C-alpha cells in the first residue's frame, strides 16, 4: 500500500501531488522533447496531431466531462479557430497573437451558443449544438471572400521571428508547447472556484444553485472556455491540414472529438490524451482493416462513422470512465495491494446524463 502524508494545504493545491508524479511526468516530458531525434517525419506528424486533438479534447472535456453538457458541434469551433487563424496570419499578424485571437473568437462563438441553450440538457442540447455546427458549415461554404467557399483556401505558413513553424520538427514543438500551455490553464481552472462550480453543476444543479452558483453564468463560461481551447486547436489544425475546406469540419469530426473524451475517460485530463492517441490511431487501423476485409464490407461507405458510433456506445455501456478509469482501477489494485475488492468500483456510473428531471 502507499500512503501519502500531507503536511501542508499547498500539497492539495499543487498540480503534482507527490514526488513520484513529478518523476514520471518529468520522464514523459523528456521523452516527448527528444522524440524528434528518434522517430521519422510521418510519426512525428501523427504525434503532432495527437497534441492538436488533445487541445480540442481539453476543451471538450471541460464541457462534457466536467460540466456535464454534451456537444455534438465542436467541429464548428475547430473550424472557427482554423479559418480565423488562417485569416489573421494571412493579414500578416504575428503567430502567437493570431492563435490567441482564433481562440478568443471561438470562445465568443461558444458563449453565443451557450447562452440560448442554457435551458437545454442531454439530447436537446446535443441537437442544438449539432444545428449550430451545421450553420457554421454552411457559412463557411458560402462566405467565399473570407473562407474560399467550397473550393477552400491555402493556409499561409506559420512564420515566427523568421522561422517557419508550419511543418516537421518545428511544428511538432509548436504543438507541444501549446498543448502544455492549454493543459496547465485547464488544470488551473479545475483547482479554482470556477472549475469546481462546473463540476458542481454536473453533479447536482439544484444543490449548485443553493450553494450560490449561477447556472446560466457558469454554463456560459464553460461553453466559452471549451470553445476557446477548441479554437486554439483549430488554429494548429489549419497548419496540419495545409488546405482548408468545409469538408474537414463535418459532423464526423464532432463525433470523433466526442469519441475522444468518452473513450479517454470523462472527467479526467489524463483521459484526453489517451483519447487523442486513440482517435489518431483508429483511422489507421480502419484503413488497414479495409484492405484485409472482403471488398463488400471493406469498401462500405459508412464504415468509419459507423465504427465511431459503435465504439462510443460500447464504451458508454461497458466502461463509462474510459481508458483512464480502467487505468485507475489497475493502479488502485497495486496501491492497495492486499485489500482490493472487486466491488470497490460497483457504484461508478456515467457522467453523461441524457435527462435530469429536477
Amino acid at each position, binding site marked *: 500500500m502507499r500512503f501519502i502524508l500531507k503536511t501542508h*494545504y*499547498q500539497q*492539495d*493545491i499543487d498540480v503534482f501531488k507527490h514526488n513520484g508524479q513529478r518523476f514520471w511526468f518529468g520522464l514523459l516530458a523528456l521523452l516527448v522533447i527528444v522524440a524528434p531525434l528518434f522517430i521519422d517525419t510521418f510519426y512525428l506528424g501523427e504525434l503532432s496531431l495527437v497534441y492538436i486533438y488533445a487541445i480540442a479534447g481539453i476543451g471538450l472535456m471541460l464541457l462534457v466531462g466536467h460540466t456535464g453538457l454534451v456537444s455534438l458541434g465542436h467541429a464548428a469551433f475547430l473550424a472557427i479557430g482554423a479559418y480565423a487563424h488562417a485569416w489573421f496570419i494571412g493579414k500578416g499578424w504575428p503567430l502567437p497573437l493570431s492563435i490567441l485571437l482564433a481562440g478568443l473568437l471561438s470562445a465568443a462563438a461558444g458563449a453565443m451558443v451557450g447562452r440560448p441553450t442554457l435551458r437545454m440538457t442531454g439530447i436537446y442540447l446535443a441537437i442544438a449544438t449539432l444545428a449550430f455546427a451545421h450553420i457554421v458549415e454552411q457559412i463557411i461554404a458560402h462566405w467565399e471572400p473570407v473562407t474560399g467557399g467550397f473550393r477552400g483556401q491555402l493556409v499561409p505558413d506559420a512564420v515566427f521571428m523568421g522561422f517557419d513553424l508550419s511543418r516537421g520538427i518545428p511544428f511538432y514543438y509548436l504543438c507541444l508547447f501549446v498543448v502544455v500551455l492549454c493543459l496547465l*490553464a485547464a488544470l*488551473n*481552472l479545475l*483547482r*479554482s*472556484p*470556477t*472549475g*469546481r*462550480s462546473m*463540476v*458542481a453543476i*454536473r*453533479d*447536482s444543479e*439544484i*444543490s*449548485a*444553485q*443553493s*450553494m*450560490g*452558483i*449561477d*447556472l446560466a453564468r457558469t454554463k456560459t*463560461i464553460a461553453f466559452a*472556455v471549451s470553445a476557446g481551447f477548441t479554437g486554439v486547436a483549430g488554429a494548429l489544425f489549419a497548419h496540419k491540414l495545409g488546405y482548408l475546406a468545409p469538408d474537414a469540419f463535418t459532423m464526423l469530426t464532432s463525433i470523433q472529438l466526442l469519441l475522444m473524451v468518452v473513450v479517454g475517460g470523462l*472527467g479526467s485530463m489524463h483521459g484526453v490524451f489517451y483519447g487523442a492517441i486513440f482517435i489518431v490511431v483508429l483511422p489507421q487501423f480502419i484503413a488497414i482493416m479495409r484492405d484485409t476485409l472482403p471488398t463488400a464490407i471493406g469498401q462500405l461507405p459508412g464504415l468509419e462513422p459507423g465504427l465511431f458510433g459503435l465504439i462510443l456506445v460500447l464504451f458508454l455501456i461497458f466502461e463509462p470512465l474510459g481508458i483512464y478509469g480502467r487505468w485507475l482501477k489497475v493502479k488502485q489494485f497495486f496501491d492497495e495491494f492486499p485489500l482490493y475488492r472487486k466491488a470497490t468500483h460497483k*457504484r*461508478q456510473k456515467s*457522467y453523461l446524463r441524457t435527462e435530469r428531471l429536477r
Partner: protein
Amino acid sequence: MSALLSAKNLSLSFGGVHAVRDISFDVEQGEVFSIIGPNGAGKTSIFNLISRLYNADSGDIVFAGESIISQPAHRIASLGIARTFQNTELFEHETVLNNMLIGRHVHRCSNLFSELLFLHSVRKQELEFRRIVEDVIDLLDLQSHRNQVIGSLPYGVRKMVEVARALCIQPKLLLLDEPSSGLNPEETEDVSFWIEDISRDYGATIIMVEHDMNLVSRSSDRVLAIADGAFVALGTPSEIQNHPDVQRAYLGD
C-alpha cells in the same frame, strides 16, 4: 429586535395540491426554530420557497429586512442562507473537501482570467478557503473522510458532509431538512450536540424540519406545527407536544 426571517402569508400549490396555505411565521436572530408536521405537510416546500427553488403563488419572505421573494435562487446563499436537503444533494463524484470548498464559492474574489493563470491571489484565496473548511471539519469530526469521494461514504456521513458544506458558507441562517432521518439513535443523539455547537460557534440561526420529537424538544426554542400545508400551532416544544390540535393533526380525527 426585529425578526431575522419572516414569512408572510406564503401560499404554494402544484396543480390541485395545496402544498403551503397562507403560512406566516417569524424567526428571531439566534434561535433554533423547528417545523414539524405529518408526511406531505409541506415542510420541505417551505424550505424550497425560502431558498427560491419554488416560486410562491402569493406572500412574501423578508430576510434581514429585505424581501427575497423575487431574488434568483443562486443569490440566496450570498445573502447568508444555507441549506441541506432531505435526501442529500451532494456532488457525488467529488471528495468531501471539494464539496465543502464549493461552500466558499460565494466568497470568492477571483475571476476567470486570474484562475486560468492561477495567479498568486488565487493561490492565497485557496489557502484561506482551506483554513475555514478545516475549522468546519474539526467541528463536525470529518477528518477521516476529508479526501474520500462522496459516492463511497455511508449515508450518515453524507448527511454530516452536507451540513458541513452549508456551514462553509458561514451563513446567518441555516435550514436543516430532517437532519436525523436515516441516522441511528447514537448519531441522532449527536445531532443535538452539533446543533448546539453551530448556533454557539457560528452564531447561526437555525430552522429545522424534523420528525424526531425528542430531538425537537431538546434542541429547539420554538416549534411550528403544520398539517396539509396549513398552520396548526406555534409555541415552545412542550406547548406544541401537548397541543390538542397538533395531536389531532398527527393522529387524524
